């Protein structure tokens, strides 16, 4: 028997301690990944980081960073769908999609990602509350079985957002530990698209249940993304640390710091003086100033968001569709793009995007610039020069006030009397009354199908109709068909007709240009801006 002396025990203890400590020390020494500071105008409008509450464009910035969806978007290409937390998926029938989940994925708290988390993320407790699926405008009755047990109060505005994303989702069935089925209450060809939308993020259901309240959880969600939330100081800073067990490879940045710097000039000054490595939300006129210094460059992203002018057809001077059509033909969109955007964006093919793929109406265009036709339409409509009110809340969109002024001049050229009324906020823009005429807006497509845009924004449940600005019976019937039909050829024809109604026949809006965002950065960082508001700091986009 070997005798253990006190000295030997001490030596063994020291050796053991050293063995345990040294590798970690070595790892710590080897971790020379940078800490990157990004100045942004706003981190979150709602003071939360959950996409179910923070549906804004600024919230999209974090999309590829903290939480992930079953189907991801290719941020390095054209936002086409790619496997995310699901490795493959297949249609069981028109209403059901089965997803095979990625194995070996770890949440930020170290727990394993399983089908339970998918079902939990799409549960009444986390997402839907007591709402029920709606099919063709009819809400289905409560299902039988055990009702959901709510351990914490769900913030009231979340279920309506969840139901807009998933209007007819009946349930998520767990097939096995790594397989789930999304069962819809009605046929829907967009289930896969909806699974890729912000708001369909998968969170650790255990961490959610352990959190004291929904809002507290939403300030520090536990996801599977490459970065985990260390600290969130609303209106001030968000600090994310690398999630080294990320399934997609070790994140290239040790710590990401998003600092809220509301003033554009302060963001640029901070970039130029070396405090920030990136400055987001740069306006086009600031680009030459930044790039004068060779150490910096500005990257542009054409985002899936189009700038529009929206019509209120109850406003007497534009009640006649010919006046609205005249307005669409009086706009030289390319001149706006060239003069105010330095040619850094494009005029799209109406309210659609290239990533619609087989649903893209290739030969569709915005109304052509034709002042002669505009004048003719105005004459035919018998327009007497009554003022058309244009409510503008300058500062919400890039170049908003200059664009409004240019438009008013273009309309004046063809004989339309459009008068700008500056207001402070959206409440004042939407205020109902005979004076409400036209306004600014932008529309996004959240997934690769027109349901995500023309239906969501101009259909019967979209903002424009809900605000009482515009409606069209045929458009509303087509909306139901586009949402429920599974005949792809017919769906495409329906979408083409919708564009014709909304952009030509009875204009609801007119598209001006695609929106672009500009990110200034040090040239030394090999990073590429995504065609989205999202900022991608995964390994595949660094170095």
């Amino acid at each position, binding site marked *: 028997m070997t005798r253990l002396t006190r000295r030997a025990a001490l030596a063994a203890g020291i050796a053991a301690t050293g063995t345990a400590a040294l590798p970690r020390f070595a790892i710590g020494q080897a971790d020379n990944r940078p800490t990157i500071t990004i*100045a942004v105008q706003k981190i979150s*409008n*709602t*003071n*939360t980081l959950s996409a179910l509450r923070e*549906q*804004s464009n600024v919230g999209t910035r974090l999309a590829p960073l903290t939480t992930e969806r079953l189907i991801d978007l290719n941020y390095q290409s054209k936002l086409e769908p790619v496997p995310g937390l699901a490795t493959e998926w297949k249609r069981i029938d028109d209403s059901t999609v089965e997803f095979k989940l990625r194995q070996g994925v770890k949440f930020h708290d170290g727990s394993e990602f399983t089908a339970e988390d998918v079902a939990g993320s799409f549960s009444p407790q986390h997402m839907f509350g007591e709402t029920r699926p709606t099919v063709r405008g009819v809400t289905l009755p409560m299902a039988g079985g055990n009702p959901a047990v709510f351990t914490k109060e769900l*913030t*009231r*505005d*979340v*279920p*309506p*957002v969840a*139901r*807009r994303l998933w209007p007819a989702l009946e349930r998520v069935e767990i097939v096995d530990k790594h397989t789930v089925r999304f069962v819809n209450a009605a046929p829907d060809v967009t289930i896969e698209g909806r699974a890729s939308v912000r708001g369909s993020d998968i969170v650790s259901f255990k961490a959610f249940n352990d959190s004291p*309240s929904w*809002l507290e959880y939403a*300030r520090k969600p536990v996801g599977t993304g490459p970065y985990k939330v260390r600290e969130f*100081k*609303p*209106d*001030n*800073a968000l600090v994310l640390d690398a999630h080294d067990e990320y399934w997609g490879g070790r994140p290239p940045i040790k710590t990401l710091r998003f*600092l*809220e*710097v*509301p*003033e554009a*000039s*302060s963001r640029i*000054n*901070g970039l*130029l*003086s*070396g*405090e920030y490595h990136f400055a987001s939300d740069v306006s086009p006129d600031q680009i030459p100033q930044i790039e004068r210094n060779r150490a910096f460059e500005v990257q542009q992203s054409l985002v899936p968001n189009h700038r529009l002018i929206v019509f209120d057809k109850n406003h007497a001077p534009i009640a006649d569709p010919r006046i609205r059509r005249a307005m669409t033909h009086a706009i030289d969109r390319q001149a706006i793009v060239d003069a105010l955007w330095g040619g850094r964006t494009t005029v799209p093919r109406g309210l659609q995007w290239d990533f619609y793929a087989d649903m893209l109406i290739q030969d569709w265009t915005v109304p052509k610039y034709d002042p002669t036709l505009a004048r003719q339409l105005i004459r035919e409509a018998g327009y007497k020069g009554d003022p058309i009110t244009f409510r503008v809340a300058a500062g919400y969109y890039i170049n908003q006030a200059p664009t409004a002024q240019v438009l008013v001049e273009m309309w004046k050229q063809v004989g339309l009397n459009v008068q700008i009324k500056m207001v*402070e*906020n*959206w*409440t*004042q*823009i*939407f205020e109902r009354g005979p004076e409400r005429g036209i306004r600014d*807006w932008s529309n996004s497509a959240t997934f690769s199908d027109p349901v995500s845009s023309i239906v969501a*924004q101009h259909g019967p*449940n979209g*903002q424009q109709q*809900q605000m009482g600005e515009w409606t069209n019976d045929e458009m509303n019937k087509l909306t139901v068909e586009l949402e429920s039909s599974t005949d792809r050829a017919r769906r495409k024809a329906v979408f083409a007709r919708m564009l014709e109604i909304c952009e030509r026949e009875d204009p609801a809006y007119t598209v001006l240009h695609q929106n672009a965002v500009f990110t200034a950065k040090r040239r030394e960082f090999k990073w590429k801006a995504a065609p989205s508001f999202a900022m991608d700091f995964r390994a595949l986009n660094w170095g």
Partner: protein
Amino acid sequence: MLRFVALRVGRALLTIALVVTFAFVVLRLSGDPALMIMSPDAPPEALAAFRKAWGLDEPIWLQYLRYFTAILQGELGQSFRDGRPALQLVAERIPATLQLTIPALMLKVGLGIPAGIYAALHRNSAIDRAVMTFAVAGFTVPSFVLGLLLVLVFAVQLGWLPSGGQESWRSVILPVISMGLGGAGILARFTRSAMLEVLGQPYIRTASAKGVPWHQVVRKHALPNAAIPTVTIVGFMVGTLMAGAVVVESVFSWPGVGRLMVVAVSNRDLAVVQCILLLVSATMVTSNLIVDLLYGVLDPRLRGTAPAGGGH
């Protein structure tokens, strides 16, 4: 004295009541918090749920009644944006604001008053003109313009100081200078005027004629008598300590009460705005009360204005 204080306190409470009422009327009638916070693209059902959750769907008079009753009970409400108590949100920002406003006040007093005294004692000299030129420039150039200028020189060009944020003690320097120089200019102007007025008084001539050394004449006779207008201005500056500096905090990305105010107003986050207004008005009212009391200390003739306790 008791009646004097009671009157002042009563007036202060009335002022505060008017301020919160005004805030309610302006904020609630000029914007819908649901649209501001949830964004105009939120589904109508979500907007309706938000309004219901916060009682924004009730008649406006009922909302006002609830709002005012809650204040009287010391309940300052919760932020519409994230559901946390408004007082907690504001309290979190106060240290950051005081980090700027207290040094800025010290700069104003420490630079402005001596400069004003010096200029008055050297009236019409080159130094007087130089001091007054800087003073006028100090308070006519807006603080944000000065701030941007300082950032361009000391952060962007020279790289000596940070352009913003709250990273280290060095981050304080530029915002404090931006805020302090204007106030120092104002104080220098007021101090100079007050001193010149006092220096022309017969009792100054008398003291000098009696052979009192000039520095004693200035210290014992001129300065205390010239202090009243200066104390009034300093009192006003103390009153604004809590309000922070809305523009400077934005330019320097400083996470203080001023920036919280901007965000809260633009989101119509009524509870937070109300909490800040109460804090600011309470500071202002307290500071005015202290100034009123100081008048009596500085000038015995003014003690008579305190009806109950004034000694003659």
